[in-house]
């Protein structure tokens, strides 16, 4: 492969990979606070993009994106309030099945609100044919947006969880719910908040990637699975690792496409999931303690 081709594929892989990483971080936020795997996460990403696309016909692009993120954030909160909050002592599995049901309902709702046509948000800067050239590879400036926004999101979240009161309250909740409650933290509110936060960053990710990958009503579940794969690959709950894992998976996919048929790209990521679950359930960066995932 030519040098330029390698750069091209790498860039494509990193771009897509950073979106996977954001979705995975969304998973981790909810997982850390509740132990649930929110399968509807992929749906939030798509919903955010779809909403922004519709709104951008009436308001300027930046406003549309902000509104879309806000709307999706509310949706996330709504989902938690209606479906999750009721089941205080339900088993994790039951809650996950519920989120699967929610992702289906969300998908169907999007199908009926919009339709099955493929759409995309306008490019943030330039048009579909603008290119930037770095190291001999040509790519759209949107790619820089994706990488930039992802980096900002990761950094902002790190700051949020480290330095703000709410962020620390959420971490407390994740560590030891009972203790957090005893300290006056409303764990229920933290759970709702974690859903809202995940939905929000998911929507933002959806908006920024939409010009590159297009958006369609049924892209939710595959995205959710990839996001979950990345989350597990990095070690569930570990968001820094999720970034690395996301980039890895993105690169792996990109180079698979370069060698094999496009259809097999999906197979690779699922194989990664299965291999990780079976052999290294704590992820690449997880500890040695096997306990958690094994049945007996």
């Amino acid at each position, binding site marked *: 492969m030519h040098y330029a081709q390698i750069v091209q594929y790498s860039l494509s892989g990193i771009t897509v990979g950073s979106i996977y990483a954001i979705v995975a971080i969304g998973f981790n936020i909810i997982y850390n606070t509740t132990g649930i*795997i929110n399968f509807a996460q992929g749906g939030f990403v798509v919903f955010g993009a779809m909403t922004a696309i519709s709104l951008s016909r009436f308001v300027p692009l930046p406003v549309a994106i902000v509104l879309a993120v806000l709307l999706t954030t509310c949706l996330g909160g709504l989902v938690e*309030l209606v*479906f999750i*909050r*009721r*089941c205080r002592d*339900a*088993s*994790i*599995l*039951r809650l*996950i*099945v*519920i989120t*699967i*049901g*929610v*992702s*289906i*309902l969300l*998908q*169907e*709702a999007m*199908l*009926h609100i919009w339709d099955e046509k493929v759409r995309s948000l306008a490019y943030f800067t330039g048009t579909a044919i603008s290119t930037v050239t770095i190291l001999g590879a040509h790519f759209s400036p949107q790619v820089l947006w994706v990488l930039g926004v992802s980096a900002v999101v990761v950094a902002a979240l790190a700051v949020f969880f480290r330095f703000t009161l709410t962020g620390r309250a959420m971490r407390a909740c994740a560590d030891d719910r009972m203790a957090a409650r005893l300290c006056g933290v*409303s764990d*229920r509110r933290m759970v709702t908040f974690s859903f809202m936060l995940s939905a929000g960053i998911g929507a933002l990710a959806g908006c920024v990637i939409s010009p590159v990958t297009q958006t369609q009503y049924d892209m939710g*579940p595959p995205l959710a*699975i990839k996001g*979950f794969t990345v989350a597990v690959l990095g070690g569930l709950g570990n968001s820094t690792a999720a970034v690395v894992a996301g980039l890895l998976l993105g690169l792996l996919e990109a180079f698979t496409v370069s060698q094999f*048929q496009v*259809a*097999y790209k*999906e*197979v690779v990521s*699922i*194989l990664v*999931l*299965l291999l990780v*679950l*079976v052999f290294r*359930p704590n992820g690449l960066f997880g500890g040695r303690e096997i306990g*958690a*995932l*094994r*049945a*007996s």
Partner: protein
Amino acid sequence: MILLRRYAVVLVGAVAVVLLQVVLSAWGATYYMTQITMSAYYSLVVIGLCLLMGYAGQVSLGHAGFFAIGGYTSAVLTTFNLIAFRGVPWVDGCRSLGLLVARQDLYGANLLTVSPLLAFLAAILLTSLLAFLIGLPILRLKGHYLAMATLGFGLIVYRLALGTAVLGQADGISNVPPLRIFEGLEVTGRQPFRVQNYYIAWAAVMAAMILGINLVHSRAGRALRSIHQNEEAAHSLGVNTYRYKLSTFVLSAAFAAVGGALLTHYNGSIGPSEITVMKSVRYLAICAVGGMANLGGALLMGILLNFLSLRGVFGTYDDAVFGGILIAVMLLSPQGLLRMPDWREARSFLCRRSHG
């Protein structure tokens, strides 16, 4: 008398099936039988899944994958033309043994394919073997990780079907010949055989029900229930929990494969639409709403919901209906709506306000 109560579902079901057929034939509405026949084959998957989820307590989100492996294996073997190898000694030998059959396709060309009966057996064996191999590693995983792993499995099968030329990619495989059991009795969708196939499908379902009911009431069934209700205690009583889970997994896969293979011969084709995540979720939803550990309920819901879906009653909201059912069941009653519902829990759910 215990026997009567135990097999009540089967007896009542058999009577209902016959009555239904008589009524439909009398009204000249035999076209309904097609959808009922198809629903019956889908219900085979549900019965197997019910044993796995309701009794062994293991969740599978990828059972459509096993259905498809059974169907596709049958389809590929009975449509792959070996005519080019005619003259090769062992090929001719197989043909004389009846393992390969010669026939003509729609356009009059000569075909040499595997005999449908042999293909059917191969489908079941292959699916069972794959289930065994896949189950070995993933059944060591806990609850929700097992669910995700099975989801991943279903997706891989889907992607492989979409991407592989031999499997017909997006178009699937068609022109699948009928499965001839013996002269005059064959699994096919053709008009004159409609009533016959109605009964074949129901015979398969009833056989599965009887096997399932027997299993549930046997020592093995009791062991499964014990694993589901308290795995640690079961283990301490001498139950090899891992092996029981694996056996149930393989069994449920075999049931799904039978359904898949028979439906493929009935429809004359199979496509990737049978392997989608939605299909797997559908089976899960039906199992849940029928009552996780209720074979009769699962069967009833399987027939009912699939029939309605096939008739288009749900329109474009098809997937949404099953998603909604799944959520509703999970929220209101983990035991499913056809078990003695926990009315207290349901009422408290509806009346409950979120406490701080």
